[in-house]
Every structure is written in structure tokens, then in C-alpha cells.
């Protein structure tokens, strides 16, 4: 049922843990993450002063949350292209309905949650019941959300977010050394911890099993369609949470959320999670997200011309994923 490297008892527990973390191509992303941070340290040691790190965490938190959501979908063999549009839609909905009134914050958060669940449910059911390939189903959802939200607001976002709504993405707990511990960091950390625990529970394992071998999972009594639908719902709910963080971080702009789906998928794959399902860990997906954000920071520290950055980013991603693929063929632990 399980798939991450070997589940059988390794001789030394340390090796087993390492294999869990770094096996199956995930070592690359941790190595790359360390490498990028070392490069940043070399260029600008002051980046590692606590306030700067906290600023980085605040910025990276939404992508981590999105990557965890995308991980859940990818590990069960699907793909969710609608998250970028959903983030945009949620922020626009929040601004339009809250319209600057503090008292509406909590009801609107609930509304957003309901909307997120609805979108995820539709995605999931279209994929599992109507048997539409997830790339097409979520591509369609992306178009529908993009158009519908603009149709509703007349083309550009209206209204305003309340201060309370923006707290989570923008503010934090004031404290001495860090200056401020961002709420966003706490949220992202909580999401990751919950996801790690979740993946160890039976449901998480069935999720992986569904992605690894649908048929075998079905024979073993897993309701594959239901498991996958839940994964889509979770992805949409996490995208909603990411929307709350991004909206809080930077407010409403017309372009909010654009292209995030590809960044999130890139982050997850960079983490050694295999498109097609069955392989990879939450922590590796998180590391992928952090690596992507760290790369953007590195480019900035290098003062790399803005226009050439996509090229470098593309090269690094392809190289890293190729390297991980090579690793996967030479497993961390020898298979007995």
C-alpha cells in the first residue's frame, strides 16, 4: 500500500528516517534549498537576520500552503490547475463582499470556505464521476472561475478588504528578537504539520495508494473516487487559505493569483513528488515551495536582470527534476 521508499524495517532507524525524507528523489530539493540559502548567505549575510527571515517566511507562506494542497492532489494521481484562479476569485469575493466593513470579516471567511469546498467538490466529482482527466477538468474550472468572477465584478475588483481580514497575511505577534512573528508563518507551519500527520493516518495512506496503483487500491477496498474527491476539496480549501494569506499580504489587485497554479505544481514536482501519483512527501513539497521562493530571492540578491530570470529558473527546474529522476533510479536504500 505504501510507496515512499521502503516501509520494511531498516537496520538502523536513522537511515530509515533519512530514507523517508530523502528517498525517491527528494534529496535533490533539500540539497538545492541548502545550496540556494548558502548562495544568499554568501551574497548578503544580513538576509539571515531574524526580521529579514521573517519577511521571507511571510512571503513564502502562501506558496507553501498551496504546494501542500497541490501535493495532496498530485500524490493521488491528479493535478489541479484551478488553484491560481481560485486564489484570485477568493480575494476578489472577499473584497467585494466585505467592502471595508470590519463586522463582515468572519462571515465572509466562512463564505469563502464554503465556496472553496464547492469548487473542490465540483473539480473532484467531474474528475471521478464524469471521468474527465483532471488537467482538462481543472483547466475548465480555471476558465470558468476567471470569467465568472470578472463577470460578477464588471471586469475589475471592487470593494475593499477589512483590516481584520488582512491581519493574518500582513501582521504577526510582536516580539523582541524577531521583531514580529508573522501569523502567516504559523498558519503555514500548522498546515504542514497537520498534513504530515494526515498523511500518516490511514486516509493519507489510501491517498498515496490510489495514486500509486488505482486498481490495486480498489481491490484492497479503497473507494478511489471518494479519496480523490476529498483530495480536490482539500486542495481548494488550502487554496482558499492561501487566498486569505495573499489578500492579507498585499491587498487586492486585478492580477492577484495569476500563474500561481504553475508555480505551485513546479514547487511540488521540484520536491521530488512524481506527477502521476504515488510518490513523495509533504515535507518535500514544502521544501520545493521554499526553494522556488528562495530562488526568486537569490535572483534579486544577484541583481540578475529582470528579463533573464525566467531562463535561469527554467534551467534550474529542469536540471533539478532531471537529477531527481536519476536519483530515483538509484534508490537511497538498496532494495532487498
Amino acid at each position, binding site marked *: 500500500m505504501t510507496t515512499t521508499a521502503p516501509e520494511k524495517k531498516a537496520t538502523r532507524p536513522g537511515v530509515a528516517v533519512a530514507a523517508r525524507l530523502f528517498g525517491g528523489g527528494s534529496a535533490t530539493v533539500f540539497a538545492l534549498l541548502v545550496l540556494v540559502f548558502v548562495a544568499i548567505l554568501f551574497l548578503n549575510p544580513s538576509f539571515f537576520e531574524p526580521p529579514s527571515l521573517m519577511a521571507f517566511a511571510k512571503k513564502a507562506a502562501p506558496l507553501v500552503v498551496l504546494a501542500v494542497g497541490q501535493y495532496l492532489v498530485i500524490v493521488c*494521481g491528479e*493535478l489541479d490547475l484551478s488553484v491560481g484562479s481560485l486564489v484570485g476569485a477568493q480575494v476578489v469575493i472577499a473584497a467585494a463582499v466585505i467592502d471595508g466593513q470590519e463586522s463582515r470579516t468572519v462571515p465572509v471567511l466562512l463564505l469563502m470556505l464554503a465556496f472553496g469546498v464547492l469548487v473542490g467538490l465540483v473539480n473532484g466529482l*467531474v474528475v471521478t464521476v*464524469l*471521468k*474527465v*482527466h483532471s*488537467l*482538462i*477538468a481543472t*483547466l*475548465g*474550472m*480555471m*476558465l*470558468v472561475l*476567471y*470569467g*465568472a468572477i*470578472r*463577470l460578477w465584478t464588471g*471586469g475589475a475588483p471592487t470593494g475593499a478588504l477589512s483590516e481584520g481580514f488582512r491581519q493574518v497575511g500582513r501582521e504577526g505577534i510582536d516580539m523582541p528578537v524577531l521583531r514580529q512573528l508573522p501569523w502567516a508563518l504559523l498558519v503555514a507551519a500548522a498546515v504542514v504539520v497537520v498534513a504530515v500527520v494526515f498523511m500518516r493516518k490511514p486516509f493519507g495512506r489510501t491517498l498515496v495508494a490510489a495514486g*500509486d*496503483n*488505482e*486498481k490495486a487500491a*480498489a481491490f484492497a477496498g479503497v473507494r*478511489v*473516487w471518494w479519496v480523490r474527491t476529498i483530495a480536490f476539496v482539500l486542495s481548494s480549501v488550502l487554496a482558499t487559505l492561501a487566498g486569505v494569506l495573499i489578500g492579507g499580504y498585499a491587498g487586492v489587485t486585478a492580477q492577484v493569483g495569476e500563474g500561481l497554479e*504553475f508555480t505551485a*505544481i*513546479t514547487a511540488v*514536482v521540484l520536491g521530488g513528488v*512524481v*506527477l*502521476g*501519483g504515488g510518490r513523495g512527501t509533504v515535507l518535500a513539497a514544502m521544501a520545493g515551495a521554499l526553494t522556488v521562493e528562495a530562488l526568486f530571492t537569490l535572483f534579486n540578491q544577484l541583481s540578475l*536582470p*529582470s*528579463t*533573464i*530570470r*525566467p*531562463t*535561469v*529558473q*527554467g*534551467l534550474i*527546474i*529542469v536540471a533539478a*527534476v*532531471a537529477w531527481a*529522476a*536519476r536519483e*530515483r*533510479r538509484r534508490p537511497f536504500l538498496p532494495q532487498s
Partner: protein
Amino acid sequence: MTTVDRKPRLRSLGSTEMVYLALLGVLVIGAVLVAVDGGNLFGTANLVDMLTRSSLLGFVALGQTFVILCGSLDLSVGYVMALCSLIGATTMAGDPAKVPLGIVVVLVVAAGIGLLNGLIVSVLKVNPFIATLGMGLIIKGYLDTTYKGPAGEVPASFQQFGYSRIAFLPVSTAVMLIAVVLGILYLRRSRTGYHMFAVGGSQDVARLSGIRTGRVLVTAHVLCAVAAGVAGLLIAARFGTGSALVYSSGYDLDSIAAVVLGGTLLMGGRGGIAGTLAGVLILAVLDTVFNILQVDPFFKDVLRGVVIIAAVAIYARRQIDRRASRPRFGPGGNGGPPKDPVPDEPVPAGQGADR
């Protein structure tokens, strides 16, 4: 979830026929709506409009069909188009004598990119989604750095490719149709074309039956990039110059949608170019009808999304029935999207031994 052969009547319909039935349906509904609005969908102006809209996406989707049939994917086509429009226009530089040179350079560059894509996917085993997304980023960076805007000039003679037409048939559409016919012949009559179905059905099974899967994948990627290159040339002819901003027009996802609308399985192994043509035409008809009916641009996106999902859901219903009736081969294992069983067409395993 294993319902078995409930609709024998539908099974007698091939998937391509289904798609053309869908096209017919869209045409009829469109024509009725336009007629209610007081227009004629099949008037020369509208006909020209539909065909023109189909030509550009037609080239891209044609190429995309090859890679999708192989179970791969190409997200870099938009960037290849942009790059090729610029290379074509700057090479021609307004000189009619340099048109052939421009075409050759574009095709060579496009083929080179396709070769790289194919090698990254087949040799380095990078998932095609990421490989071509990365390739797209690489090209984007090059474009943004090198070209600060539209560049180059296309001589009037080559602009004909984008503008002139024979009665109601635009030249670009005619060329696209010829390419489609050649593509169909290639898939049906050539050995590599035939192998594409096998590779898409199951790479492992194909390899075990002696097919050089890597070579087939690379060929598909090269063909796809070349088709995108031709689309880039058409862009240059239409614009009179090359433009980098084409990459933001979404031809990558559009072309995948068209291929899948055309009945080709996204997991590979089943489908064909004739269906893709219908998929492209469905999208073009929708665009024209929306335009005539003055549909709000944002509502257009919503409708497009719904139509794509609905159409694919309808095709999928049939495929479930079929899938259940055949034994499933073991999963592919290494990377790649989940594999589907071998295609309906018998794979000529004997021919595969071309070593």
C-alpha cells in the same frame, strides 16, 4: 465503478465520428442562435471568420496531437510560436528574396527545440509537464531579454500567407488542412506514426515489443515544435512583424483543450488528428458565434470552460465502458501520467523490431 458494456449502440460509433457529431451539434445550435439574432452563420463573412480563426490553433493543435498521443505534453508551444515569429520576421527583414531562408531557419530552430524537449523527456526522464514548462520559461527569458517589442518585417509576398484567400477558404487554413492530411497519413501509414499509439498506450509494453520508445517520443516532440514553428510563421505573416507577446495568448492550454476536445486521450494511446481538427473547429465556431452574438468577453471564458468539460465528460462516458471490457496492463511505474491500456488498433509488434 465497473459498469460493463451498457450501450452497445454507442460503441459502434468511432470516437472521431462522435467528435464530428459534436461539431455538427455546435454548428446547428450556433446557426440557430445566430439566425434568431437575425444573421447567417454560413454567410461568406462568417465562414471566412470561422476558418481563419481555426488555422492558427489548427497548426498548434496538430503538433500537440502527436505528443499527446505518445502520452506526453508540450506546454512550450506558445513560446516557440513567439520565438519563431520573431526569428522568421527578422530573418526575412522585408526582403522577398529571403522568405525561403526565413522559413528554413524557423523550421530548423523549432525542430531543435522539439529535439531538446524530446530528449529531456525521454533520456533525462523529466515529466513532460515540467520539462516543457521549464523550456517555455527558458525561451521566455530569452525573448524578454533579446526582443524589447515587435521586431523584423515580413515582405508583402509572405503576408499573403496570412491574408489572402480562395473564395471563402483562407490560404492559411488551406495549408493547415494539407498539413492535417499529411499528419493523418503519417500516423496511419508510417511506422513511427503507428508506434506513437503503442508508446502512448503503454511505454513498457511498447518497449517490450521492440519499439524504440525514446526515438518515437523525440520524433513526436520535434513534429510538435515544428508545427508550432509554422504557427509562428503564420503569426508573422498576419502581423507583418514578429511579436514576443504571443506567448501570453494561451495557445498552450488552448491547443491541449482542442486535442482533448477532438477525442484524443490525454493519457495517450488513442485518438487522432482528424478528431483534433474537429476540436479546433468547435472552438473556432464557438468564438465566431460568441462574437456575432456579442457575448460578454468574460462570459465567453465561462462558456468555453463549461463546453470543454462537458464535451470531454461525454466522450469519457464511452471510454469507461470500453476500458472495463479489456484487461488492464500493469501501471507504467516510472514517472509519466497514469497509463491507459493499449489502443484499439492492433499494435504491429512484429514491425516494431527495427533495430
